[in-house]
């Protein structure tokens, strides 16, 4: 295949150059893509409440991941005692459990918490 393809233009919407392009791999990202492409209309009160819950839970999830990364980094650096590692781990497990409960309560899936930022892509 010649490199003249590099200068190709035209109506094609296919830019796959290599690899399987297996949609299963990027299923979640494609879902988020779909949501990013649709205008969001959230006029009803129920939708608003769910939208707020989505926002709040995403913030919590973001903080949880930040803290977890921080803890893992310190663990890697050796500045945590065994008891601290155990305590932190338990806390994160509990947080994860609590998040699952809250998500159930509001009827939200994991994918819903990866908020699309409209034109600005995904948060997480």
């Amino acid at each position, binding site marked *: 295949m010649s490199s003249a393809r590099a200068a190709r233009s035209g109506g094609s*919407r*296919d*830019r*796959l150059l290599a690899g*399987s*392009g*297996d*949609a*299963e*791999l*990027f299923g979640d*990202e*494609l879902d988020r*893509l779909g949501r*990013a*492409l649709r*205008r*969001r209309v*959230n006029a009803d009160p129920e939708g608003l409440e769910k*939208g707020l819950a989505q*926002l709040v839970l*995403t*913030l919590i999830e*973001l903080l949880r991941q*930040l803290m977890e*990364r*921080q803890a*893992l*980094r310190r663990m*890697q650096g050796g500045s945590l005692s065994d008891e601290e590692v155990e305590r932190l781990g338990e806390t994160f*497990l509990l947080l*994860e459990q609590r998040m*699952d409960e809250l998500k159930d309560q509001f009827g939200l899936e*994991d994918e819903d918490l990866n*908020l699309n*930022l*409209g*034109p*600005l*892509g995904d*948060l*997480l």
Partner: protein
Amino acid sequence: MNVRSPGGAPTPGRRSPVRRDVRRTRELGEPPRRRRREQSLARARQAREASLLDLIDRLLDGGVVIHGDITLAVADVDLVYVGLRALVASVESVQPHLGTALEARPG
């Protein structure tokens, strides 16, 4: 959802293992030509979706930004998310990483 190991502690990561080969189960009596055609349509769709995903990333997050009004259809609610995005970006740039950072370097 969490995958629970027998010991009771959830296995980190919510995703089931990545399936490398996704093939439709062969249905009895289905003509092979139609199945091949469906597979090739599916591959074409996947190629377009993968392309669109990368296009969106680039158009919305890359390119030259000229100071001026970006007149995208952004509703008021979206402005909250704009703030969140900035928050994430600033936190990421401050934290050293376990993984890798967004960095451009030669070679």
